[in-house]
């Protein structure tokens, strides 16, 4: 079935949602915290652990403070959207499923050059790595395709397949747009047509200024320490609550880990972390991520035999 070309940013998102819903994924909503990438959503990090099958897809707003360009760069943003698909165990036809999703948003494989180019994925903050590719469409990277091998220091058994689409870049390509701010956000024929710039130009300017110049670094440092301490404290708590129920609090602890990670990114954007300190901070976040992974594996959601 030939697909008509989508006309707006949101139509591309909607088509991806429908496509993956059709393929049986649970369509989740974005995680309600600041994260650097869709992988940080607990639906990916934690759910890729343990034996229990899982299939989810969602949009995740992602923040990379150092990429802010005050809304002036045609391609770079400090806040952008990723589309994330995670399926455990990875199905044997994952590549075909992925190519089907490209077709769904109007990328006709008989007209384009789609290639899988080696790209091993590693997240030092999450203690995670996997093998896979970056997917190229006509020489442009449109997605990351990864088979998770380890997360939080644990071998992934079974292995999850993860797909990450950089939505703005992909949409700009599909829609033929040169500057992200010019991209139609809703239908260009809508009574009130909005561009990406109408929605995000102002926030890009404001956050770029705050990220680079204004964020209170002492406060950020303090918050980093607080998040770290709270994460450790939550995980050190007894596994049985006051009523005698066994409840391991992996998710609340992981929230603090996510917080610490984002605070580190903000500190990095403010340029107050030296090269040597960098490694130490990343190591601290990784320690938290690993402990959260350990904790998650002790919950029924992981369904790992005790």
């Amino acid at each position, binding site marked *: 079935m030939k697909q008509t070309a989508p006309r707006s940013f949101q139509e591309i998102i909607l088509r991806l949602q429908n496509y993956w819903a059709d393929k049986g994924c649970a369509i989740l909503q974005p995680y309600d915290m600041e994260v650097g990438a869709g992988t940080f959503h607990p639906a990916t990090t934690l759910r890729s652990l343990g034996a229990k099958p899982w299939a989810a897809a969602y949009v995740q707003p992602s923040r990379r403070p150092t990429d802010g360009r005050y809304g002036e760069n045609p391609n770079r943003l400090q806040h952008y959207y990723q589309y994330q698909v995670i399926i455990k165990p990875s199905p044997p036809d994952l590549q075909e499923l992925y190519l089907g999703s490209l077709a769904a948003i109007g990328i006709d494989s008989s*007209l384009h050059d789609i290639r899988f180019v080696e790209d091993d994925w590693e997240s030092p903050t999450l203690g995670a790595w996997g093998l896979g590719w970056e997917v190229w469409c006509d020489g442009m990277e449109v997605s990351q395709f990864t088979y998770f091998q380890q997360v939080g220091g644990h071998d992934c058994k079974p292995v999850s397949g993860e797909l990450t689409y950089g939505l703005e870049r992909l949409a700009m390509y599909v829609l033929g747009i040169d500057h992200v701010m010019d991209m139609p956000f809703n239908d260009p024929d809508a009574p009130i047509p909005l561009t990406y710039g109408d929605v995000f130009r102002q926030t890009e300017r404001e956050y770029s200024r705050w990220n680079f110049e204004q964020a209170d670094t002492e406060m950020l440092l303090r918050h980093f320490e607080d998040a770290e301490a709270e994460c450790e404290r939550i995980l050190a708590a007894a596994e049985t609550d006051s009523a005698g129920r066994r409840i391991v609090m992996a998710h609340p602890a992981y929230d603090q880990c996510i917080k610490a990670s984002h605070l580190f990114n903000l500190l990095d954007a403010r340029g107050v972390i*030296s090269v040597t300190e960098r490694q130490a901070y990343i190591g601290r976040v990784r320690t938290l991520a690993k402990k959260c992974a350990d904790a998650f594996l002790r919950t029924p959601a992981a369904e790992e035999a005790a």
Partner: protein
Amino acid sequence: MPDLLIELFSEEIPARMQPRAREDLKRMVTDGLVEAGLTYAGAHALSTPRRLTLAVEGLDAASRPQREERKGPSVNAPEAALQGFLRSTGLTIDQLEKRDTPKGKAWFAVIERPGRPAAEIVAEVLESTIRNFPWPKSMRWGSGALRWVRPLHSILCILSDDAGHEIVPLEIDGIRAGDTTRGHRFLAPEPFSVTSFEDYAAKLKRAKVMLDPAEREEHIWHDATNAAFAQGLEVVEDRGLLTEVAGLVEWPVVLMGRIDDAFLDLPPEVLQTSMREHQKFFSARDPKTGRIEAFVTVANNETADRGATILKGNQKVLSARLSDAKFFWENDLRTVHDKGLEGMAEGLRNVTFHNRLGSQWDRIERIERLARTIAPQVGASPDLAAEAARVVKADLQSAMVGEFPELQGVMGVYYARAAGLPEEIANACRAHYQPLGPNDDVPTEPVSVAVALADKIDMLTGFWAIDEKPTGSKDPYALRRAALGVIRLILTNGLRLQLSRIFAEANPHADAEDLLAFFHDRLKVHLRDQGIRHDVIDAVLAMPGNDDLTLLVRRATALADFLRTDDGENLIQGFKRANNILTQAEQKDGVEYSYGADPKFAETDEERALFAALDAAEAEIAPAMKAEDFAPAMAAMARLRAPIDAFFESVQVNSDNEIVRRNRLNLLSRIRAICLQVADLTRLEG
């Protein structure tokens, strides 16, 4: 004699791993077959991004039957010994024979191993190959435990001969071997079955798969050069890229596009690097001007619009990349214009070089000091060398090098010119990193030489001071390369440097003696490659002034040449004889015979002739040595050969007359002294 065809069909194999994987597949399978008793006529391995293929021709249909006899325990041995023997042979007692041996009756087992059909052996060998394949990185997928470079989808494994073909019965973790495969992912995705290698290769070609990587490379190069030629351009040769690109496509389609005029003023290195590293494009240049004007990309798809959409997309991506590069370039030029190259280098204060050796800035200050010291010794102006040292690493802080680290040094040259610095300084930005390997050019401009030496010697003495020396195969800071770089800089430019003093000035905490020994080791390797024997080098290293490498090599070369002559070879024998007699006498008498011998005690003509010859030689050798003119000194020494030989021929050193004896020993001592001026000849072998 059947032929064997194996295809391991998977998701996309990284291009860089394919050449090695082909070799490994061929080696592991053929070794396994031979070990199991099958011979074959020939084998070749091929690959595409999605398949590893091995064709083995003329394989034995079955292995030969084997008969093995094994002697067991004596018939009187305890039961346990017999049981052990039965277990190890897999036989029962009624299958054993009793035979007479010189030590009495013993059990014998005759084990008949029937020949095994090739299919059975192939199945075992292939399974073990897949399970033990040495991928640099492998993975699991789904719920399985099997490891492969990326998910393995199917195995094709057939034996074929004139009568037809059979599928080798094999199943690995749920993947059953068959006789089917698939064509190109988009152009011919349907599965099809094959009966032989020829059938397989032909059907794949129809299904838009070029199986042979060499054929893909040839095809790409042919089409790329033609496309460029049609536009009056030439493709910049790049073997590595060609191999990589051929590993990314099953059906190469070459497309060429122009680079937007807005980017043509970027340095060619920037265009080329950006296109190569990010897009895997070849560059095409105007053969007259050398300017890069177009790119060649290789797609993996044939489209109805003859690649128009693909080319447009690639062009767009390239423009975005080059806009970035242009932005970096213009930003960097602005920085240079506003703050100068030294201003650009400022940021290096915050970049750690090594946590025990300070920041890059600290390092630059050390290099500057050292370059100033070295400059006059290499014919450079100390001020110019110091100024160069301050800016040669500035480009590490440029936006361009941040994006393309491989352009370090190259960008420095452009930025130094933009800053209006003298050409010698601009050149040093790139040249001070050289020589980068044993085949790289050695800088010869004095300013570049001074900074290149300072850069490398600072690094070596620094890591020596914190005891981070290379050990065995571990050399994380490439210090061996740095030392060889210093050696080549000195020798190529004929520099006369006292390295020990320079080491001490560079870093007083470094063990200069130990570092010099490290240099001597590198030098030995370097000279050995040039055909100079190790004992010749040892003889020369034992001489004073051995931290002057130019002198050292001159001396070694002269000695090596000398030893190749007849006189040289024989003189060494004469010297050794003299030295041996003298050393023994000195040990026996407990004295050193170094008083001048007196010709008045000479008894024979030969003895007197030697006195005269030594006087003549000394008169020639001393000034030659002073002038470091080794060849004439050695020639003079060579003339001693005949008188020394004649002396030993006719004279008994250990005379009964103690005065005569002592005088002769003192005469030998003169021989020794003269010869040792040239090199420590006692260290020569043979």
